[in-house]
């Protein structure tokens, strides 16, 4: 079953691609088998993230970008993963990003998949990176990932994408918003969409001011995990500055629904890719991503194995002791780990 699926994905069969994404989304042993077989065939696609607040025009922009790459730029195939939020109450979701991507229907050089976030809080689903891997292995040149509508702290996309586009719209707030930490920091390219609305120039100015305040420090997203400190070469300040510090994110104005400014945006993506290749930033990002991923897997698997060998009654007893202040959670954790 898995072999047929993997062969299908590698041959670019659309049904197999769709099935494989479902398999990785649902997790479990079959997902690992499929991902293990696909892994050697990944690493070729350029991954572009598109993030920004709800209603800022992310889906429309992805639609316009994909159209541009298919029609006007050198012929490229485009895979799209669009993430929308899962209801914390019912576990259900409405995935509506295809509504804005209807221009892409009927083009076999394009594959669109909607994904529910399934409780993940960083703006992506747990399995988004794995779904990207499926599209990468299937041979798509460009994979665009659209996050859930994101505010300030949903920065997971910067770990998944090579080029992160942060979409803003006019009139969202004053200049202080632009100097806060978080989502604005992860941008490789800024887009002020709906630039035909009043206040577009002001939004551009606020972003420019923010960039002017930057000291040119490291621009590779660090996940601040233990593993990264141990294995990433050049986590030392000097080297990091040298390899990845020189990119200044361009600020572009677009009107996605009229495809205005989209050619410039596509060009900025291509320029950023060459920059990453030449500066060594690409290798650094790949390394950083692999470390972060490995760390997540260790966490998930440790949890799984502890839960598998601990019976419910023991767990309940420990939780009860913590609640009644008979034991602290750290001691309880150590006990479960058998220390």
């Amino acid at each position: 079953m898995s072999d047929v699926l993997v062969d299908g994905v590698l041959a670019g069969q659309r049904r197999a691609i769709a099935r494989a994404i479902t398999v990785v989304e649902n997790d479990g042993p079959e997902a690992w088998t499929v991902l293990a077989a696909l892994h050697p065939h990944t690493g070729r696609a350029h991954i572009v993230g598109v993030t920004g607040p709800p209603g800022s025009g992310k889906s429309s922009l992805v639609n316009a970008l994909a159209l541009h790459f298919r029609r006007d730029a050198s012929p490229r195939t485009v895979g799209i993963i669009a993430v929308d939020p899962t209801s914390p109450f019912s576990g259900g979701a409405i995935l509506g990003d295809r509504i804005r991507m209807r221009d892409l229907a009927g083009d076999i050089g394009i594959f669109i998949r909607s994904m529910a976030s399934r409780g993940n809080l960083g703006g992506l689903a747990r399995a988004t990176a794995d779904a990207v891997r499926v599209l990468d292995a299937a041979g798509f040149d460009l994979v665009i990932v659209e996050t859930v509508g994101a505010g300030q702290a949903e920065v997971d996309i910067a770990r998944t994408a090579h080029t992160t586009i942060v979409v803003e719209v006019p009139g969202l707030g004053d200049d202080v918003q632009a100097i806060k930490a978080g989502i604005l920091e992860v941008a490789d390219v800024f887009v002020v969409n709906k630039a035909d609305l009043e206040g577009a120039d002001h939004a551009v100015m606020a972003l420019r001011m923010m960039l002017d305040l930057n000291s040119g420090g490291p621009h590779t997203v660090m996940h601040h995990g233990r593993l990264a400190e141990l294995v990433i070469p050049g986590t030392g300040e000097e080297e990091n500055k040298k390899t990845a510090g020189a990119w200044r994110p361009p600020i572009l104005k677009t009107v996605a629904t009229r495809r205005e400014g989209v050619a410039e945006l596509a060009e900025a993506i291509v320029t950023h890719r060459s920059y990453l290749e030449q500066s060594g930033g690409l290798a650094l990002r790949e390394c950083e991503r692999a470390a972060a991923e490995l760390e997540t897997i260790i966490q998930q698997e440790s949890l799984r194995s502890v839960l598998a060998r601990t019976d419910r009654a023991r767990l309940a007893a420990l939780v009860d002791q913590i609640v009644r202040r008979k034991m602290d959670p750290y001691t309880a954790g150590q006990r479960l780990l058998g220390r």
Partner: protein
Amino acid sequence: MTDKKIRVLVAKPGLDGHDRGAKVIARALRDAGMEVIYTGIRQTPEMIAEAALQEDVDVVGMSILSGAHMALFPRVMDLLRENGLDDVLVVVGGIIPDEDVPILREMGIKGVFGPGTPTDAIVDFVRENVQ
């Protein structure tokens, strides 16, 4: 340990723009814990079959109020079959005269829901019939 959810495509084929019913159904399915891919109005049969394939859905739900159902539904069913999506549960709703219902069922459309159907009935039907 898997995290399987029922995935449903909700689409409005044809030219009528009355999508209130489709949205109510989409919301009801969401509240029942399903993942609903909502494609909006004016979808061609080709677009619906393509979306069903890419999204690897368990269910395709369609709504037509214009009377074009006997032209559009057979085309969607043919395309789903061509794409190898024979195992997908297809349910439809809207204004569908009684005499058309047996013909639609013959085509492989499992559920036909007219006006006034409680959303719970549709949720239950989907849960019971998804393979």
